């Protein structure tokens, strides 16, 4: 419980996301707007699911710990389903808005493509989800205390940070795959995204056995990353071109006029 823990966990949890934001999103106001809108949609889904959970807790037996845990699990599943529903709703809204933006700006091409929107909205979902999961924990880690003094796990902060990083990146990958699947009407892919989200959340029911929840989550993260890479148009060929700095399109696109 020192500054080292605080900064370490903050950078583990938010490092990749902030780097992505700074390098790809921060300079374009339109992308920032859609990122924040994505965060807002996630927030609304959370508020709805916590409303349902709250009502169910009020009408239940508050003394029974088993029932409360059951209700919480129900709340988690409901929240995951609502998040994915709101992701779909955001997709629909963006499709409509794109047509509107086109007529408003009277240009030939859309200022932002649906793939960029998928990436940005996924990251928005991820930012908000990560913030809600971990910020209170980080705030507590600055203050005095000893972690796990009553026999709980000593790895609470670290595992929270790693889990949050995984979830943020996963939301981004899910966003890309989801939007691509909706564009191509591949509903099996949509179902796969929803199921993988459910799996990741349900894995955390095993906490505090962190190994059992973190390792499969990272495996899923890796696989979803590869899937998102391919659905965003990547391939081994252009990966190689990019890494050896021979990708002419990329080099030309980033050539800024003086």
């Amino acid at each position, binding site marked *: 419980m020192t500054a080292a823990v605080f900064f370490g966990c903050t950078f583990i949890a938010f490092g990749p996301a902030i780097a992505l934001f700074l390098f790809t999103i921060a300079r374009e106001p339109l992308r920032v707007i859609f990122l924040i809108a994505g965060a807002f949609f996630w927030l609304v889904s959370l508020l709805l699911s*916590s409303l349902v959970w709250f009502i169910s807790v009020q009408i239940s037996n508050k003394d029974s710990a088993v029932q409360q845990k059951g209700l919480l699990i129900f*709340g988690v599943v409901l929240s995951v389903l609502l998040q994915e529903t709101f992701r779909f709703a955001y997709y629909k809204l963006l499709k409509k808005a794109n047509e509107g933006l086109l007529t408003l700006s009277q240009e030939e091409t859309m200022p932002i493509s649906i793939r960029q929107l998928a990436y940005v909205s996924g990251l928005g979902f991820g930012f908000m989800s990560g913030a809600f999961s971990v910020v*209170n924990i980080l705030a507590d880690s600055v203050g005095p205390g000893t972690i796990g003094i009553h026999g709980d796990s000593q790895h609470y902060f670290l595992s929270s940070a790693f889990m949050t990083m995984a979830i943020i990146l996963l939301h981004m990958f899910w966003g890309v795959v989801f939007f691509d699947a909706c564009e191509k009407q591949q509903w099996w892919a949509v179902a796969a995204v929803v199921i993988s989200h459910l799996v990741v959340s349900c894995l955390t029911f095993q906490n505090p056995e962190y190994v059992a929840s973190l390792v499969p989550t990272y495996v899923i993260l890796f696989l979803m990353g590869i899937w998102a890479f391919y659905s965003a148009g990547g391939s081994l060929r252009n990966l190689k071109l990019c890494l050896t700095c021979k990708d002419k399109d990329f080099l030309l696109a980033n050539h800024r006029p003086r």
Partner: protein
Amino acid sequence: MLFVPVTLCMLLVVATIKSLHFYTDKTDQQLIYTPFTENTSSVGRRLLNSVLNAVVMIGVIVAMTVLLVFLYKYRCYKVIHGWLILSSLLLLFWFSFMYLSEVLKTYNVAMDYPTAGVLIWNFGAVGMACVHWKGPLALQQAYLIVVSALMALVFVKYLPEWSAWLILALVSVYDLVAVLSPKGPLRMLVETAQERNEPIFPALIYSSAMAWTTGPADGEPGRASDEEAEPSGRAAAAEDDDDEQEERGVKLGLGDFIFYSVLVGKAAAGGGDWNTTAACFVAILIGLCVTLLLLAIFKKALPALPISITFGLICYFATDSLARPFMDDLAAHHFYI
């Protein structure tokens, strides 16, 4: 475009509230604009007192705005200048000195009065020059943000709990009425300024680009500390638009900055929960997006408060009462959604 200054102002307020205890310590001292106390025995009495407080505060704001429009319409520029210079003196010197002393107290750093005097003098003098006369745009923008944050902090400290929320709700209703209705004071102000082809007091309004430089020494005045600055936004076509294509010289009133920051500051001050603060932050930014979108569609002065404050209030109360217990429970069991 307007996100960065609004975000900076809110961040400044939240950072101050979370680190300096001064602005969250409950005092019995209240502003004279909220004369009724909330330390009453019954809930009904407290509710009544907060409603009365809100009515008094809004009454003061309405009166000040009407007075300002009256003075502007009858070209009493000197009075307006004097009033605004006096209030920006108060903000830039006195409130910033208070802020500095609280920072020093919190971090237990000793500073002698001459050093503090030199610092505050420099800060205030440069601020007065930038805001009322000429200065680099970025510096003027920075000073406007700092001044708004200081004002918001004063409100967060001295407005009692329930009164603050009611005042936020009522002031956004007033903003809606004042900017959109034909006889609304703010609309009259904007229209008079447009007729005379003058910018509206560039220092009562934050502008994201230098639209045009006004001629002589009437460096347009800063804002009053104890009245409401025009919370209206409008798009002005920037003549010398040498920035990027998106820069359209959108203006936002300092009152908007202040009330956004008051909302987020109250969210940060009540309870110490970061989720609520983050939720209000996002809600206000989304409200600002929607307002700017409407501005692009309608192309006339629009009130910037109602949509953001509505979203912000809904998100605050919903997150505080619903999402907070849910997230706390999840964190205790270490579940992730």
